[in-house]
């Protein structure tokens, strides 16, 4: 049996924000993300989840460690255009109020994703043509592949229908949509690019409880249906539990526990995870995260459990 190749592999990543003193936001994180899986990254506010998401997309430079996307090192975004090899990683952000450009019709914003997918498809065909002359074995997954599946939406209107909105909404501006609808549109925009990886950085945190689970569910179903790996970041375990195959529990810049969702859920090993679970009220999405239990809070290096 061959080991499946991770789409993203993160090795001992550290991130410091400059300052006096510098903030050690991420302190040695390692994990793999495989094709088509849904992984939940949970942890309290300020533990470094967004920083991790931004490192994976290159929006924030890492201080140490390695992030590889299909074997390609992910470098921080400079002033220039993002390398097309890395556009297979897309992201949906937290704030529905600023995740879309207020001055552009939503249809044209979804078009950005479709255009990128088309561009990557052309690149892949060109790569394949080159490979015909190459005596070496062609790789199964190429980085620029957009893996265009037959039943994928081809227009912004189709994408809007796919995320539960109206085809006619393409001509409307973001301000006329609710927060939940905007996050659906942002999801459509990112997934239209046919990425291998979608990162959702607390995409449901700003939504009201009744829409949270629905948007989370939509994101994961759509990602899974097109084979996109989803890294779903949240501080709310009760919703993440519903969609994630695997959980990563982050605390104070480190991953303190990881494993299949049910295992972590029914048999938490780390004290932080235990208090996280204990604090979950009814699964209405309104769950608040607990602080670290007193006895553990002073530990500089938290115990790590795998």
């Amino acid at each position, binding site marked *: 049996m061959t080991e499946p190749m991770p789409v993203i592999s993160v090795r001992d990543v550290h991130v410091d924000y400059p300052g006096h003193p510098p903030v050690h936001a991420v302190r040695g994180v390692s994990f793999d993300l495989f094709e088509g899986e849904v992984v939940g990254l949970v942890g309290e506010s300020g533990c470094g989840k967004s920083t991790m998401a931004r490192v994976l997309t290159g929006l924030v430079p890492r201080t140490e460690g390695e992030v590889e996307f299909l074997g390609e090192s992910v470098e921080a975004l400079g002033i220039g255009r*993002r390398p097309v090899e890395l556009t297979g990683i897309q992201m949906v952000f937290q704030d529905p109020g600023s995740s879309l*450009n207020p001055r552009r019709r939503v249809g044209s914003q979804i078009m950005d994703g479709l255009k990128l997918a088309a561009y990557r498809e052309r690149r892949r065909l060109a790569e394949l043509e080159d490979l015909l002359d190459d005596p070496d074995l062609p790789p199964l997954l190429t980085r620029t592949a957009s893996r265009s599946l037959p039943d994928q939406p081809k227009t912004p209107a189709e994408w809007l229908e796919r995320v539960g909105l109206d085809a006619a909404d393409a001509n409307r501006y973001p301000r006329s949509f609710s927060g939940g609808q905007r996050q659906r549109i942002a999801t459509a925009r990112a997934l239209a690019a046919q990425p291998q990886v979608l990162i959702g950085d607390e995409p449901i945190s700003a939504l009201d409880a009744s829409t949270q689970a629905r948007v989370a569910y939509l994101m994961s179903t759509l990602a899974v249906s097109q084979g996109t790996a989803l890294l779903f970041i949240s501080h709310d375990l009760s919703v993440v539990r519903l969609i994630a195959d695997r959980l990563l529990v982050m605390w104070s810049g480190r991953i303190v526990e990881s494993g299949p969702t049910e295992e972590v859920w029914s048999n938490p090993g780390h004290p932080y995870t235990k208090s996280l679970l204990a604090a979950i009220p009814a699964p209405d999405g309104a769950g608040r995260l607990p602080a670290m239990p007193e006895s553990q809070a002073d530990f500089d290096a938290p115990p790590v459990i795998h």
Partner: protein
Amino acid sequence: MTRPQLTADVPVRRSLTRRIWRAVPKGLRQPLGAVALLIALAWLVVCAVGPQIAPFDPLAQDLPRLAPPGEAGAVLGTDELGRDLFSRILAGARVTIGLALLLVCLSMLVGSTLGLVAGFFGRWVDEAIMRFTDLVLAFPTVILAMVTAAALGASLFNAVLAALVVSWPQYARVVRSIVLGLRGNEFVASGRLLGFSAGQSIRVDILPNVTGPTLVMASLDIGTAALLLSGLSFLGLGAKPPTPEWGSMVSQGVTHLNQWWLGVFPGLAILTVVISFNFIGDALRDALDPGAEKA
């Protein structure tokens, strides 16, 4: 049977006028704002057709000298060379307002471009541009404009250049701060993730969100620009005789204190332009500010 036709006709007309009325910013729908709008529009019309509607040739010196208003057919009187003041004010609108508009456009272009580049690229680019901006802003506006105009030599074009030197930095500063705020927006980041180049990002995500506030600022600046240019001409650093420029007309008035009309009427012209354009700028700003909309 004419009645149904009437009722079918009237609502259409009403909704059209109402739609136009609705498009006018709220601040200009109040009586005072409407007056300001009318005055500004009237001045723009005068800019276009001023010399044509003037009762006399603004340069002809064939009326009695220093005639008070109403005498010899000169509604606003004549100057010391026997030129009709009213005609000169009408012809001067084109010079003063036209150049003010030119100045505002140039400052907006130069200032916003620098502010945009500084705000978007940050780091040393930002550092360099903003240091330069602060340097210019450190000088008193009028004095720096005067010195520059004097160094360039007195001419209307040089007066515009000199005024440009002092008026672009405010655009740079404001646009930079807007761009800095925008750059932190998630849609800008997601555009970059979707492969936008810096140029695309600026064109698609930044510029459309900057133009509104910048145009408002420009409209607020038209009055100030007219005042600055008139001021330079007043000091003899702008328009040269016999060009009918309001600022230089006021400065002639100062030397004839007994003939009050020489200074008062061109002064009033400047005043109405400054006030009416400021009013429009204010109304536009309020219309664009979502907080003010609710109040």
